């Protein structure tokens, strides 16, 4: 039972990181990214390939930088596009990443995946026993990223991103470089997704292409919608509880014998889909709506459902 809880806690941490990243891109800056899983996979693979040689921290940082660069590149190419097109370009990117991972055996070992990824603080972890040290590490990572992104959301950078989301034309007229700001938001999001991928790789110590399906993207969207777009606190509280519930059903198969594992996972994913639609309809502002800050208080008619 304890092992289950530990697994759930770590998966929730990974999901929270991905959610925080998407919350910056989509919640704050209004940029749809359906290729989330691609960036997570890049982070996981870059970390897995580098960690044995350079150590976990440099590997993770390089992974984040790599993902940020690719993310910025994709954004440079496509962010001027209207959201429908941005959405399909990002989906395409995710699929390309999947194909490369699956087919470039010399680098990624294809479908076999990469095993024996060293964990951070492995010796300390063994001394203490169990996954205690790793959980502390995961929680610290989430806390760190949360603080950084929250500070970013409160900074002038976050403010101008919200302004762009609500009305890009007005923001441009005020002299802001909308294009460059969007690219930066996308790059930061990409870096955080890579860190989530790194945490995933560290925990499982084994990665293969099957772990990185579009479902990761769906989870992230569910998390952001449930938590309240633009609200990092809402994301952590709301999304984590929902993620925990959904992940919890993974272990139902030990108790329920009427339906098999495939059906259970289908049920879980179908529920996520239904949840996305229902939350959009019934509670578009999420569990904790985006905190309105001073200027916004004066302008009540500024719609926040966009």
């Amino acid at each position, binding site marked *: 039972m304890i092992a289950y809880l530990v697994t759930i806690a770590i998966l929730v941490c990974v999901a929270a990181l991905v959610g925080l990243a998407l919350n910056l891109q989509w919640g704050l800056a209004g940029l749809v990214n359906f290729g989330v899983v691609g960036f997570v996979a890049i982070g996981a693979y870059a970390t897995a390939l580098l960690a044995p040689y350079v150590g976990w921290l440099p590997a993770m940082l390089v992974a984040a930088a790599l993902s940020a660069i690719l993310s910025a590149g994709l954004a440079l190419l496509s962010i001027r596009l209207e*959201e429908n097109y941005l959405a399909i370009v990002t989906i395409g990117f995710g699929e390309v990443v999947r194909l490369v991972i699956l*087919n470039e055996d010399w680098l990624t070992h294809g479908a076999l995946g990469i095993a024996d990824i060293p964990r951070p603080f492995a010796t300390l972890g063994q001394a203490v026993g169990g996954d205690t040290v790793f959980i502390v590490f995961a929680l610290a990572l989430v806390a760190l990223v949360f603080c950084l992104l929250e500070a970013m959301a409160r900074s002038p950078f976050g403010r101008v991103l919200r302004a762009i989301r609500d009305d890009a034309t007005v923001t441009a007229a005020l002299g802001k470089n909308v294009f460059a700001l969007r690219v930066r938001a996308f790059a930061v999001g990409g870096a955080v997704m890579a860190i989530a991928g790194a945490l995933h790789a560290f925990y499982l110590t084994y990665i293969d292409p099957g772990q990185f399906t579009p479902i990761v993207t769906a989870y992230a969207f569910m998390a952001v919608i449930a938590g309240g777009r633009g609200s990092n606190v809402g994301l952590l509280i709301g999304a984590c509880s929902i993620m925990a519930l959904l992940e919890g059903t993974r272990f139902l198969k030990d108790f329920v014998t009427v339906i098999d594992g*495939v059906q259970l996972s289908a049920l879980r994913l179908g529920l996520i889909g239904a949840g996305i639609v229902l939350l959009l309809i019934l509670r578009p502002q999420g569990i904790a709506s985006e905190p309105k800050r001073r200027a916004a208080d004066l302008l009540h008619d500024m719609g926040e459902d966009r």
Partner: protein
Amino acid sequence: MAAQLFFNGLVTGLLLALPALALTLIFGVLKFANFAVGAMLTLGAYAAWVANVQFGAPLVGSAAIAAVTVAGAGLLADQFAFERLRQRGSITLLVASMGVSLVIENVCRFFFGNASRGFDVALSRPIRWQGVRINQEQITIAITVVVCLVLVDALLRFTPLGRAMRAVADNAALAAVRGVERRAIARLTWALVGALLGLAGVLAGLDRSIDPLIGWNYQIAIFAAAILGGLGSPIGAVLGALTIGVAEEMSALVIPTNYRQVVSFAVILALLLFRANGLLGAKAARK
């Protein structure tokens, strides 16, 4: 070799034409990109499979059942999801369509599992013509799609419904002033689009084995086709589908076949960079 690939490409293109047309019609009338096209295609394939294999219906009858089933699913999705979110703008709608896509795909997975399935059709010897091998399935696909395209074209051009659809796509407010009811047109569009996707699912099931990801595997190619033709342009979607089909198959001459899907992605990127409006119409760049 090249001739064979070109021919295969044309058939793949025809297969893509129906879902690309469906995508573009929804975009034209309802103004959002429906990411559930792939999943609806999957649903069509499974509906026909149930009728064909489990109930022993002939393939034509199964195809009709698939068309009706997916049309029904489209109407349900419209009624319970998309119509309620209509005022929230296209981003919300496209995220919602992703949710709908997950629901449909996993309903199929729940009932039928991940196993690959196939229709109960007699194996037949391919025809050889000028050194090109032509399968019976390819002939069926080509004829069905061409007939569908002619019918849809006639519908859009000559019938009151087609005129009304084009009017709503062009300017919904003006159409409303002239007494065209948007809601009714939206429903009829969903029914038509559902039928097209259902048929496309059956044809896809003839072409390859049926599994829960059959539609998802076409998704990027479908979008590439519709974007190539300019989202919202029916003729453009068909031309785009043929181009993408041929490009994907012919790419086997220069790149490993594992990377076939990358072709569609590259086409989308190149197109959006150099000709953001597609070949025929539609605006892609934002203000």
